[in-house]
């Protein structure tokens, strides 16, 4: 339908195809394309785009989602060319915030934005973006927020001394030091102040395109079933035009400086887009949304762009559609706020605002995905910051019947490290011991096989997973790979 059939020049292939090693009079190979910049020649240059970095695991190009904590949970960031789907919470209080963080990160890094909404005018959305955190004024407040350790927790641990080696959840601080000159920050992932608006000069210096559905679609046309919704078709055409005209898919080879296009689509699937999957269970156009996501993903894969979509999945009546939508997106994060649920009165959650579920992480050029084992994540919207933390909830775990195979769910109760004699420590130790016996008996082989088939390597061993600079190191398996 509307898939971009543009050229095959992929990401980062701006340099020469055949590197001319020697002098030009010896070989007849020519460098393809003009060399950009004044640096001396010496083979193909690595293209580095502002605001991106290669993933530590497989070299995939990543952009930040605007929340460094979320970046860490997703394995470093959001891969370029993929879709991040946010499942909205029930009253739509917190998911617009994630949406705005993504867009604000794009403005700080100088990326081009494309904002599509059926509810609000994109200009209004951009006016409400959070301001980036400035320097030393906020540094002490930031420290107080993030390094909230009481005196008791600073006691060195005697029994569980290995847990002191764990890095904390929060990444290192990236604060923009000066805001007066154009922010050309080469860092990855910034912090934002949710209580302030972004300064006007940053907005005016940025490039953005808006798609507001009531302005683009004037009449309600009747479309036949099994084809794309009218609004979705328009949006796909709009995105494709922007990608083509501005050269995000490499179709304009004279463009010297590559840039990323950040697409944000708000409340996709709600009735305001003309889609009735939220209203009825057996709807006529149940394939509109899935087709849209499929075509969108095709557009994204062939261009330098990243997309965030918020979707009110709590309104979708047909659970099969939710499953299809999840499979068609790359990264799926769900928000579940505590407003109105019985967890609001639970004393364990009294400081938090909701649960955050990482439902899916893509396997891009990989056989395994970088999924964290920690399942009990909560978020909290403080006055300025949106934080994500671990919480230990035995009831929650029993509810979901999740017992991770290793002991890699290293859980820290907020505000206290593992002081001995505390409830968390004792119950963790008892459950540790209980599981140790169960796990150990699982691994013992009562009769050795004659020939070891397969690699024989157990992926997770009985040791804590060590996180170091956002990259996991796994403890070696109990059985080595056979020679």
């Amino acid at each position, binding site marked *: 339908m509307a898939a971009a059939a543009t050229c095959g020049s992929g990401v980062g292939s701006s340099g020469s195809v055949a590197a001319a090693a020697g002098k030009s009079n010896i070989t007849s190979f020519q460098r393809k394309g003009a060399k950009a910049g004044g640096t001396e020649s010496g083979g193909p240059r690595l293209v580095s785009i502002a605001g991106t970095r290669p993933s530590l695991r497989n070299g995939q190009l990543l952009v930040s989602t605007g929340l460094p904590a979320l970046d860490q949970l997703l394995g470093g960031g959001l891969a370029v060319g993929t879709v991040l789907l946010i499942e909205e919470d029930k009253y739509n*209080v917190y998911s617009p915030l994630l949406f705005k963080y993504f867009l604000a990160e794009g403005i700080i890094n100088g990326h081009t934005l494309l904002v599509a909404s059926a509810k609000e005018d994109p200009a209004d959305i951009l006016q409400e973006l959070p301001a980036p955190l400035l320097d030393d004024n906020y540094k002490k407040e930031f420290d107080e927020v993030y390094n909230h350790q009481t005196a008791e927790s600073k006691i060195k641990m005697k029994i569980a001394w290995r847990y002191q080696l764990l890095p904390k959840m929060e990444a290192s601080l990236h604060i923009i030091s000066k805001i007066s000159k154009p922010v050309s920050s080469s860092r990855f992932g910034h912090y934002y102040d949710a209580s302030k608006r972004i300064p006007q000069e940053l907005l005016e210096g940025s490039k953005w395109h808006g798609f507001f559905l009531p302005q683009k679609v004037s009449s309600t046309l009747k479309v036949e079933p099994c084809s794309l919704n009218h609004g979705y078709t328009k949006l796909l055409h709009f995105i494709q035009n922007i990608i083509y005209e501005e050269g995000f898919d490499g179709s304009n080879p004279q463009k010297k400086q590559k840039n990323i296009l950040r697409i944000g689509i708000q409340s996709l699937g709600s*009735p305001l887009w003309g889609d009735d999957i939220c209203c*009825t269970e057996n709807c006529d156009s149940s394939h509109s949304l899935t087709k849209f996501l499929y075509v969108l993903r095709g557009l994204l894969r062939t261009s330098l762009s990243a997309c965030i979509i918020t979707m009110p999945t709590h309104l979708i009546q047909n659970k099969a559609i939710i499953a299809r939508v999840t499979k068609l997106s790359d990264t799926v994060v769900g928000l579940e706020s505590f407003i109105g649920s019985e967890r609001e*009165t639970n004393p364990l959650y009294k400081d938090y605002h909701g649960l955050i579920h990482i439902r899916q992480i893509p396997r891009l050029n990989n056989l395994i995905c970088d999924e964290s084992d920690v399942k009990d994540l909560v978020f909290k919207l403080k006055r300025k910051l949106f934080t994500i933390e671990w919480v230990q909830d035995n009831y929650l775990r029993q509810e979901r019947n999740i017992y991770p195979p290793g002991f890699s769910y290293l859980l820290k109760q907020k505000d206290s490290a593992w002081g001995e*004699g505390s409830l968390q420590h*004792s119950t963790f130790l008892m459950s540790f011991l209980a599981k140790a016996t169960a796990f150990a008996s699982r691994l013992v082989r009562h009769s050795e096989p004659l020939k070891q088939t397969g690699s024989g390597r157990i992926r997770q061993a009985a040791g804590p997973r060590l996180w170091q600079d956002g990259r996991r190191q796994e403890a070696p398996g109990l059985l080595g790979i056979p020679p």
Partner: protein
Amino acid sequence: MLDSVLALGGLVLLRDSVEWEGRGLLKALIKKSAHRGEQIHVLGCEVSEEEFREGFDSGINNRLVYHDLFQDPLNWLKTGAALPGGPLEALNALCRGPDRGPLTIALDSLSWLALHLPCTALCQTLHALCHQNSCPGDSSQVKVVRVLGLLHEELHGPGLLGALGSLAQTQVTLGGTVVQASAHILFQKPRQRPTHQTYWFSILSDFSLDLQERPHLESLPCPDSHTSSVDPMSHLTFNLRLSKKEKEARDSLILPFQFSSEKQQALLHTGPGQATSHIFYEPDVYDDLDQEDPDDDLDI
């Protein structure tokens, strides 16, 4: 109570049911906004015009503009009194109408419209009505302040109720006990946490409201409170509360893997002269204590 319902503006949903009828409350709200001096347009679909105007005094009746969909909804009689283009067009036309000033639209009932119109078109029209700044046009247009919609909860599935609820700024759910009616109002300001209030009231014959008890502001109710406040500290097999003496004793304990100087000395000075450990063994019945090597018998 009516002031708080009308305060936020936007789409106000009145969710009623068979036991607790909402038309009285709708009329009370209409009366209140008429007293504020607003123009009121009513789209009547379920009851006739005479029945709707009954009970209002003449002042209100003059401010009330009634669009009748009840007599001839599908325009079979072709009298020309019916709304041209259907109800959606009528609603859109109100937005562009010649009147000036704040406008309240009352939908008598939103349920009727939801059953007869495609729900996406209905949602888009309601959204456009409530957010007037999206309508292209001159700024001196009529400003729709609020849309009051009467919704019968039992007629619709959870999907439509959820979709309309997500569009609404205020939702009033009627309920109550046998003797007393109550309204549970949910305020959803955009991008803020929703708050709610409950009022107990009764409506008098001239459609003014009589509040029975003081409203109490509370956070949203949990459907069933966390039943078992199970104390995790009970029934444990280990001691969680240590007395002071026990704490001191524990702190002074040297852990087995801690390498202190005394232990180092003990290990270094353990020579062959000091027999620090003994093994006591009592031979079993089947043990062969012969020290000879049994392989000596083999003739290899």
